[in-house]
């Protein structure tokens, strides 16, 4: 019964080759092809049409707005992420697990709901709608709404990278700095920050990619006012719905390049500083 049954070498080889072919074919058709189609469609009418589409006033305004929204929301989430990670990785307190769950919450909420909640707070019929109208403050269908929705969506990124890393690093070095007489901020800037810098950069990278690419949440609060409240993804949508496919795909190439740059830097950071970024919880991005 226990006769060892060795298969001929070639059949095993063929099995491996078939599996590799199936997997790479799937990845090519399913992931690489959509990426390729963006660039092909954008250049369908030549380089000149592409450049003129990118140079449109609305497209340039959308790029500017996207950069502005990311420039406000990413730093705010960095400060939050560092504060949350410091509290969670260095101290024990009641409700810590619950706090962690709440930090993760925006990842599991539909982007549409992330926008909806701000409409319910600040929209014309919302809780503060009346008050805002009286004081002539616009949040919904204006830039503050875009920023709030983006902050909500990207809130977990930095905290999520830092918490496991700081927990695994432990606090010995920081305690030593304190014992040797360092002040709180001195310890933070000289010991803590250098220890977490690559993980922080990693978190900022992912946070920024999502902030610039977010669609659902900002779509709900934007109101789609051309040149004023349309970020790049929203501009893509509007151009596409107007059947201006070259325009839509041209703006989309910029976002695709952002994605490619993000993936490249991410791979570089993982390769070069993998140990200092620590193990990542799967499915976090």
């Amino acid at each position, binding site marked *: 019964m226990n006769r060892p049954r060795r298969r001929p070498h070639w059949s095993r080889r063929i099995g491996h080759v078939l599996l590799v072919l199936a997997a790479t074919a799937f990845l090519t058709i*399913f992931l*690489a092809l959509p990426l390729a189609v963006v660039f092909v469609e954008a250049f369908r009418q030549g380089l000149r049409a592409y450049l003129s589409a990118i140079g449109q006033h609305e497209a340039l305004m959308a790029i500017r707005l996207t950069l502005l929204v990311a420039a406000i929301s990413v730093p705010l989430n960095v400060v939050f992420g560092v504060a949350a990670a410091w509290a969670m990785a260095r101290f024990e307190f009641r409700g810590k697990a619950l706090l962690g769950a709440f930090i993760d919450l925006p990842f599991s909420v539909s982007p549409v709901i992330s926008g909806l909640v701000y409409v319910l707070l600040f929209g014309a019929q919302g809780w503060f709608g009346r008050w805002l109208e009286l004081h002539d403050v616009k949040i919904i269908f204006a830039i503050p709404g875009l920023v709030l929705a983006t902050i909500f969506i990207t809130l977990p990124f930095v905290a999520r990278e830092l918490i496991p890393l700081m927990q695994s690093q432990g606090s010995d070095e920081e305690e030593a700095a304190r014992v040797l007489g360092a002040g709180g901020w001195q310890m933070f800037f000289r010991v803590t920050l250098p220890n977490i810098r690559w993980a922080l950069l990693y978190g900022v990278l992912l946070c920024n990619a999502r902030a610039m690419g977010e669609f659902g949440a900002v779509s709900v609060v934007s109101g789609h006012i051309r040149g004023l409240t349309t970020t790049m993804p929203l501009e893509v949508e509007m151009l596409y719905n107007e059947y201006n496919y070259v325009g839509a795909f041209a703006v989309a190439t910029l976002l695709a390049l952002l994605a490619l740059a993000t993936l490249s830097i991410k791979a570089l950071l993982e390769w070069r500083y993998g140990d200092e970024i620590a193990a990542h919880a799967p499915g976090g991005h």
Partner: protein
Amino acid sequence: MRRRILPGFGLSLGYALTYLGLIVLLPLVALAWKASGIGVGGMLHLLSSPRTLAALKLSFGGAILAAIINVCFGLLVAWVLVRYRFPGRRLFDALVDLPFALPTAVAGIALTALYAPNGWLGHWLKHYGIQIAYAPPGVILAMVFVGFPFVVRTLQPVLESLDRDVEEAAESLGASHAQTFFRVILPMLVPTLLTGFALALARAVGEYGSVIFIAGNIPMRSEIAPLLIVEKLEEFDYAGAAALGTVMLIASFALLILIAVLQRWSGRWAEQLQ
């Protein structure tokens, strides 16, 4: 004792709680408050409307189907990436993260350009009578796209840490490769596969950007629940939008708890395997 040495507990926790409270909790309370405004009767009335039911069925049913597809292809891809060395492996590995990084609106128009009846693949599929874009299969396809990395990235570390001795033992006892895979390896991967399934499911249920372009958004047929929320908002039916949003939110919470339980199980399982 040690707590006193390190500074900044009050400041960091206070700041984090205030920020989280203002950005996340207060808005969610507003959502629940607004939804409760229409009462239980209103909620049931809304949820029993055929259009809402159809949208919820598509969002949840489609997401479940997409997650099942992702588990199958995710297992294949993760297995090949971990076990075999072939040219371009690193590139394909990096490509897996593309759906995380590519903005959903870009994914949406790209998939539509591929699968629309006059698209790259769509015109070819049309010959065989297969319609993907502007129909439920398009919705599922987009959901597979956004959920795919979750399964692969959950499986990879576990596959890497699998003990090869067990496989060798099975094979030396006369099991074929297929038997070894299905009777020995697959059972060890069950908790991880379920975790990946739940993560992909959670992402697909709420997905909006990549779906709405390819879906065609035909009411009762290819209209997803998040889009129905947007439509209710555009009609200034805030209470209806909030009620539907609350239903989706409760489903997300349930999935979040399920994922936490599964991850704990799969973590314990992985420790036992090593």
